[in-house]
Every structure is written in structure tokens, then in C-alpha cells.
């Protein structure tokens, strides 16, 4: 296994689907479909016992007919019993990497474990890097490659995903599709017979297309090797990690899923802290945080300002912040006086900065600018945007539109909410401070002008302020880990 193998796996000049099927319900059909349907530019070959045409591809009846040197990656869907022969034919045609989707290996009892050992031995002998078996596939957006047996294909981006569970790769990528915060590479290691999470992590840390790692693990074969790979990756980029099987009952489930040994979860937790990885408790927290790393600068310190147009969310956010290492900073006098000039007397006069409904057309962008420029503020959470556009939606869909001046005011609300999103993104990029926008409208109405604006300006809209706080706390934990060591 080498970096060169991974380069060929993720940037193959040609792909062959071994065991393509004419039946649209079979993996051998779906894999070919997904490669062809998502814009892969290299040559695509397929084999089929009967030589049938599948999805416009004239299949080969034997791998011996594959042109030599044209293919770097084989996606193997054939039954386990035939795969030793498949590997030797692939080696003969110069195919360096194989993703084995076939089941019937280590997960399938004594016989399967023997087959898996034989597969690895043959691959090593032939110099082929085998990923899987029993894996879901891989995605590589720089190559427009969707070599997997399930949807989705995510937008291109900076997040590199590696997982011991295929379905959780799909879950992460579904969030990527919904939020627009994209993915560089994604791979499920299946039974990890030859290539494990540590190997992929080592590659991702060298990959210029990846700047955030997102990892799901249940158990680790070689703990020291994993720690070393994780530590090295964290020196170059943030890594967000979720571990299944953190509790006693979870670890029993993990033992039957991936055959993992139990370790004291507190040891695993300390290992993550030491390596610099941030550990998320749930899949949505993990994606939130990876998306935050991918779109926001690291905070220089823990001091957070909360700007809100609605009181309740400000209070909830203050509560959420108190459970973290972040600090709801007390506003310095000059900042308070500056805000006094922008806001009506009833504003909260402290942090959270509750505008108390006193905003006029330019208030929110001006307040955000003032917070961005003030040295006492390391990061900002922006709440209560999208409310006007939400009302606009009701008016646009109501029986009176566009009369009674509704057309004009609805367009104004949409413009304003988009502008708030634009302001937050601009403040963040101009001052290198994180500005996180949170609203439940991210879920309730993704087309809301504020939510769509956040997406349009390349940011991630958090579904609640608590989720924004958690992610910002993870950013600060990683920033501090770096500050103390580099």
C-alpha cells in the first residue's frame, strides 16, 4: 500500500465494474449506473458473463479482453468464490486497485474469514491494493467519481470521509447534499481486510483536495498505529471523529457489526484529545462540525458574541455556551457605546446582543461589522435571521399577493435576509473570525432567503444555536490544541 495506490484509487484513469448486471436491482448494475450518471470522465469498462449491453456499455465476457494499462480501479461485485481469479486477471491487465463490494468474507463465519485471508494474501502477492470486502464504495469529487452501490453523490468540497460503516458515509454525504458543504473523497472500508481507517487517514492528510477529516470508527485493530496516523493528520488539518460503541451495549453491537474489541471509552477519549482530534457524540454533530471547519476560520480565542433579533434564542444560547470552554464575553465599554449609537435604548446592552426588534435597514450589517472589528471578540453567533423572509413566504403564498404592496415588501424582506447572510460571510472572510448563522429554518425551509443566502455565500447554516455552539466549541478546542503545540 502506498500513496501511489491511493492516487490511482481516487484518481483512476479508467474504471472497470467486474460483474455488471442487466438487472437494475443488482449491485453490479447500480455501481455501473452511479459511475456513468455522475460525470466520471475516464474510460469505463464492465464485465458480464453473457456479454450483454448494460446502460449503453458493451460489456466484456472476460477480464482478459480488458485493454492493458487503461484501468486503475476495479469495482468488484462478483461472488466471493470467483474473486481470487478476478484479482489475478486484474493484475495481468495492470489494474492496481480493487474495491471489493462482494459480501461473504470476514462477516460470514469461519469459511468467510478464510476466504478473506486468501484474498489479502493474493492481493499482496499481486501488488494490488484491495479495499473492502463487503464495502459500499468510494467517492472522489476531483475525479467526478461515484463508485458506490448507493446514493448520494455529494457536491465537491474539502471534507474527506472515511468510515467503518458504509451507510454512515451516505448519511454524511446526504448532509453535504442538503447543506452544499461538499466532500473531496469518501470511502467505506468495509471489513478493512487490507486497508483500514488508519491507512486512508494517512492518505487524506497528504491530499491537497482535503482540508478536514471526518471519521467514523467502531473499533481499532492497532491502537498505536491509529493514534500515530490521527496525530499526524491533526497536525495538518482538523479531524472530526465519531465512535460507535462508546457505551457497554453499544460496544456489544459493534462487536457483532465490525468484530471490534472493547476499550475503555475514557481511554479512547483521552487518545483523541492527545492526538488533536475533536470527538462528536452524534452523526449530525460530526457533520455540523466538519462543515464548520470547512467553511470558517479557526477562532483565535474563546470569547464569543451572540447577536440576536429575538430574546429567547439569545437566552438559550447563553445556556449552551456555559457548558463549553467558550466564553460569553462581557461587552467592553467602547463596544457597548458603539452599539448604543446604532441601536434603540431598549437593546439588551450586554451579551447576548439582543437588538430587541429595533433594527432598521442597515442595522444588522453594521452591528456585525462592529463585532468583527473589535479585538475583544473572537467569534460571533448570529441568530434570528430569516424571520422576515419567512413572513414574506406566507404573504407570497397567501390570497392577497401581489396586491396591497405585498410584492414590494416581500422582495425587500428576501433581499434583507440574503444581505444578512452575505454580511456574516464577508465579516468572517475579512477578519478571519468565525461567524456562525443558526436558525431552524435551515431544516424548516431551506429555500428561505437567509438560509439560501448562507449556502450561496459558501457557509453552513446551523439548524439550532445549540448545534452552532457545539461546533464552535470544537473549533476552539482544535485551535487551542494547535496553539499549545505548533
Amino acid at each position: 500500500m502506498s500513496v501511489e495506490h491511493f492516487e490511482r484509487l481516487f484518481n483512476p484513469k479508467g474504471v472497470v465494474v467486474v460483474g455488471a448486471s442487466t438487472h437494475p436491482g443488482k449491485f453490479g448494475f447500480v455501481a455501473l449506473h452511479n459511475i456513468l450518471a455522475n460525470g466520471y470522465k475516464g474510460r469505463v469498462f464492465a464485465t458480464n458473463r453473457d456479454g450483454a449491453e448494460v446502460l449503453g456499455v458493451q460489456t466484456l465476457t472476460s477480464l482478459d479482453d480488458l485493454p492493458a494499462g487503461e484501468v486503475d480501479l476495479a469495482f468488484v461485485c462478483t461472488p466471493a468464490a470467483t474473486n481470487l481469479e478476478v484479482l489475478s486477471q486484474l493484475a495481468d491487465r495492470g489494474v492496481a486497485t480493487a474495491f471489493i463490494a462482494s459480501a461473504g468474507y470476514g462477516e460470514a463465519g469461519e469459511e468467510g474469514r478464510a476466504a478473506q485471508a486468501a484474498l489479502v494474501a493474493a492481493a499482496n502477492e499481486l501488488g494490488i491494493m484491495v479495499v473492502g470486502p463487503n464495502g459500499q464504495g468510494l467517492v472522489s469529487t476531483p475525479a467526478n467519481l461515484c463508485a458506490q452501490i448507493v446514493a448520494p453523490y455529494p457536491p465537491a468540497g474539502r471534507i474527506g470521509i472515511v468510515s467503518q460503516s458504509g451507510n454512515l458515509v451516505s448519511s454524511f454525504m446526504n448532509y453535504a447534499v442538503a447543506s452544499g458543504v461538499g466532500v473531496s473523497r469518501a470511502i467505506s472500508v468495509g471489513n478493512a481486510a487490507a486497508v483500514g481507517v488508519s491507512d486512508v487517514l494517512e492518505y487524506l492528510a497528504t491530499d491537497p483536495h482535503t482540508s478536514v477529516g471526518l471519521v467514523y470508527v467502531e473499533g481499532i485493530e492497532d491502537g498505536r498505529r491509529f493514534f500515530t496516523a490521527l496525530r499526524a493528520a491533526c497536525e495538518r488539518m482538523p479531524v472530526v471523529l465519531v465512535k460507535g460503541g462508546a457505551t457497554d451495549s453499544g460496544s456489544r453491537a459493534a462487536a457483532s457489526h465490525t468484530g471490534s474489541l472493547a476499550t475503555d471509552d475514557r481511554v479512547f477519549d483521552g487518545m483523541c484529545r492527545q492526538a488533536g482530534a475533536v470527538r462528536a457524540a452524534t452523526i449530525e454533530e460530526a457533520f455540523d462540525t466538519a462543515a464548520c471547519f470547512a467553511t470558517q476560520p479557526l477562532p483565535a480565542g474563546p470569547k464569543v458574541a451572540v447577536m440576536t433579533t429575538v430574546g429567547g434564542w439569545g437566552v438559550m444560547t447563553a445556556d449552551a455556551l456555559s457548558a463549553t470552554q467558550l466564553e460569553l464575553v462581557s461587552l467592553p465599554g467602547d463596544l457597548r457605546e458603539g452599539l448604543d449609537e446604532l441601536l434603540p435604548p431598549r437593546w439588551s446592552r450586554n451579551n447576548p446582543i439582543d437588538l430587541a426588534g429595533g433594527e432598521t435597514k442597515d442595522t444588522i450589517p453594521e452591528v456585525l461589522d462592529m463585532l468583527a472589528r473589535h479585538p475583544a471578540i473572537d467569534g460571533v453567533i448570529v441568530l434570528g435571521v430569516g424571520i422576515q423572509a419567512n413572513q414574506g413566504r406566507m404573504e407570497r403564498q397567501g390570497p392577497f399577493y401581489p396586491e396591497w404592496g405585498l410584492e414590494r415588501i416581500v422582495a425587500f424582506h428576501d433581499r434583507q435576509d440574503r444581505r444578512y447572510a452575505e454580511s456574516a460571510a464577508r465579516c468572517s472572510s475579512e477578519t478571519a473570525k468565525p461567524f456562525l448563522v443558526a436558525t431552524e429554518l435551515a431544516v424548516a425551509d431551506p429555500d428561505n432567503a437567509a438560509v439560501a443566502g448562507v449556502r450561496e455565500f459558501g457557509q453552513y447554516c446551523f439548524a439550532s444555536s445549540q448545534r452552532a455552539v457545539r461546533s464552535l466549541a470544537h473549533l476552539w478546542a482544535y485551535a487551542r490544541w494547535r496553539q499549545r503545540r505548533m
Partner: protein
Amino acid sequence: MATSNSSVRRTLSEEKSKELLAPCGVPLLAERVVTSPEAAGTAAVELGFPVVAKLCGDNIAHKTERGLVRLGLGDEAAVQRAATELLDAARPEDGQVGVLVAPMVHGARELIAGVTHDPQFGPTVMVGIGGVFAEALGDVAFRLLPITRTDAEEMLEDLTNQVLLGPFRGEPAVDRPAVVEVLLGLSELVATHPEVVSVDLNPLIIVDGRPVAVDALVEIEG
């Protein structure tokens, strides 16, 4: 790195454990190991009252459970009486035994620290809140060995009950750099003595803010 089935684990006596730990900067009480009640009394006079007396030997690991610890001995006669009883309580399987006499220290707080071997990650170092609620709280932080000073400092930050590390019941805040030195000492011990598979410093009593190990057990393999 599988541990070989043929290797043998054994626990060192408290005295030998402390001999290993002292050069690594683990703060230990001034103490004496003696073999007669008279010598125990003399040692106590030199150390200053009150003292504790414990029976110790290579094969004695669970002193408290066997009632082999006597606390708060206030004069020479009490020390001699306790030493007599402890020596009488020795069993043949305990091997060579002695009576350890040490000053009795007081602190409202206790920490625990140690080294354990994780099946996946190998040797680890641990620090946590000790005392009677230690198990109920489960407030401990681990790192893989070896550790850096920054790692050790962050272990203390990881503990949930930070209020117990601040000024507490008239005692000053825990001297964090002093606890950090203990953890670095454990790291150094395992680096220089790879045969050490576990260390148990329990309790690490906080006396005027500074940690003192009043009991120590080292387990070695091979």
C-alpha cells in the same frame, strides 16, 4: 503488541514500589520500614506523631481489606502495640514482611493517579478525583504514554469537577504543576522501566495544595 501468555505479572511491595517511583519525582512521605515493634516506636518518634503503620510485603496487595493499616497512632506505646498486632497478622503466604511507619498527613481532597495497560492502545496514564466518591464520580482522564507537559496539563483540565481543584474548605488550590510533575514522573518511569505494566497511586492526598502519595503499588511483568 499482544502480551505473551507465558509472562508473569507480579505486584511489588509498597516499599519496593516507592523505591522505583521516588527517583521519578513522585512525592512520597518520609517513612521507615522496620521489623520489630520497638523499632517501629523509635521510627515514629523520629518522624513525629501522629503516624500510620501498615504491614507490607511482596505478596500483600490489599492491606485495607485485610485490616493491615492502622491510622492516627498518637504515641510510642500505641505504635508498638499496633506493630505487634500487624506482625502477628502476617500469613505464611505473605513472605517476608515488615511494618511501614509514616507520618499521618491530612487533606480534605484526594486524587488518584496511575498507569494501566489498555488492550488496544497499550500503556496509558491516568489522573482522577479520588476519595470515597471516586468510583461513583468516575471523573478520570487518560492519555497514551509517553506524555508531554502540555498533555499532562490538559488531563487536569479534562476533569469535570474543577471546583475540587480550586481553593477548597480553607485549603489552597491544588498545585497543578506539582500534579503535572507526578504524571510526567509516571511517564518517565514507564519509559525507563518497560516492565512496569501498572502503577496505582491511591490516594494522592492534597496537603496544603500539594499532592503526596501515601500508598503506591507497582505491577511488573516478565
